[in-house]
């Protein structure tokens, strides 16, 4: 018994060293690839195809249609515009599915050139990736039944009941903005939305990008008021890839000046962006 313990620990240590050795070699190789511009503009042009990481399960932004197999949404239309800007063809694009957990590893592996996937720009993430300018300004907002007296945050008082998702920052935010307000917390947004429909509260609060998705499912509900928090969505690229960031920012500027951005925004969100 004692002998096998000793053996096990010795072998584990050896295995760890071997793994660590491989890891180091790999990292060096990966690092030099990135320096040579793995996801750089020249590489994209040479490939003739823009590889973009998008969500496949998020309504309005990136959602796969089971019947056509196509992925559609705001993020996809923005990606196509970038492909058109860089390669001259909006269909020279390959969409790869990412999730919040896989988008940064896939970007840094060089499997995708950029991430357009409802990704909020944060100081924390800026240490790992580079961000473009804001391409969608999300923020916490309110969903109400059409015709409700609640027209914005100002109409929420300490006598109101607001519905939210358990433990979320949005619940914390609304308690800070309206001290004393009653908040009912639910396990998920579906339960919260059902509660709103059955009249258990005056409004449902979370990021407006999610609320617009709910409003798109049931036209009896609408998003009211201006967002009262700041959740800027950015497009992420590998660190140090300034050429690609510039190409993205140029595309966004063109889209905004030509009015195309407003069209895409209205197509998915259902109203013009706030100026």
């Amino acid at each position: 018994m004692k002998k096998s313990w000793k053996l096990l620990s010795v072998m584990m240590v050896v295995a760890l060293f071997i793994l660590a050795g491989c890891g180091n070699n790999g990292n060096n190789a990966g690092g030099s690839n990135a320096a040579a511009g793995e996801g750089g503009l020249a590489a994209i042009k040479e490939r003739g195809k823009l590889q973009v990481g998008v969500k496949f399960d998020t309504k309005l932004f990136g959602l796969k249609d089971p019947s056509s197999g196509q992925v559609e949404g705001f993020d996809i239309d923005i990606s196509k515009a970038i492909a058109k800007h860089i390669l001259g063809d909006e269909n020279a694009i390959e969409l790869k599915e990412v999730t919040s957990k896989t988008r940064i590893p896939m970007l840094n592996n060089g499997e995708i050139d950029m991430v357009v996937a409802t990704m909020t720009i944060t100081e924390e993430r800026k240490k790992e990736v580079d961000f473009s300018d804001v391409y969608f300004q999300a923020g916490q907002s309110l969903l109400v039944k059409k015709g409700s007296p609640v027209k914005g945050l100002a109409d929420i008082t300490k006598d109101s009941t607001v519905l939210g998702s358990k433990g979320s920052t949005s619940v914390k935010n609304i308690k800070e903005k309206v001290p004393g307000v009653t908040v009912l917390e639910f396990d998920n947004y579906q339960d919260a939305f059902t509660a709103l429909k059955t009249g258990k509260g005056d409004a449902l609060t979370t990021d407006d990008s999610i609320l617009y998705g709910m409003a798109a499912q049931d036209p009896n509900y609408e998003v009211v008021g201006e967002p009262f928090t700041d959740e800027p969505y950015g497009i992420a690229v590998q660190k140090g890839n300034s050429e690609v960031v510039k190409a993205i920012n140029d595309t966004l500027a063109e889209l905004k000046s030509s009015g195309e951005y407003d069209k895409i925004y209205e197509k998915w969100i259902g109203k013009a962006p706030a100026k």
Partner: protein
Amino acid sequence: MDFAGAYSADNLKFLLDGLYVTLIVAFTAIILSFLLGCIIGVVRYAKVPVLSQISFVFVELIRNLPLLLIIFFMRFALPEVGIKLGLMTAAIAALTIFEGAMISEIVRGGLTSVDKGQIEAGRSSGLTGVQTLWHIVLPQGLRRMVPPLVSQFISLLKDTSLAVIISLAELMHNAGIIIGHGYNYTIPTLLLVALIYFTVNYLLSVLSKRLETKNA
């Protein structure tokens, strides 16, 4: 809840596409992990020098790690050292290694459970060690392994759903996309997916019952 919307022909077909991937991954991994498990199990049972020690470390290392970590490792750590696997290959590789370690213990246990007298009888009737293992110990041991093996295969089939983390388009993944289309699809979709997993796994255990009674 919107059962009619959730169960549209397109959505049902989409779920079947997912089931197809689930089954391909599960059955490939079942075969490979069974082979791997048998090899390691026999090596450790027969105490083959060096190989037996390596197997011991492998089994202890793998079965004490979460499968989710191994899947993530295959998908994102291996490319760092230059090994690039497709999504399906990564999932199959992770399941094979993980379940293979589990199965090797079942195999070893099954073999150890065969009475020592059987081996002595084999050897004294002139069979070599390998012949004794193949003709005497394995047939008896295998029969005893069937119930735990089937449980392990059922676990494996359910564990394929963990590959949702790397966006493999299996059953749970496709269910997630359908749910993305409408919050009121959540319960109907998950109910149907539960029914599908149950049916497939129940068939698997019925099949094994048949196998057991036939061999008993």
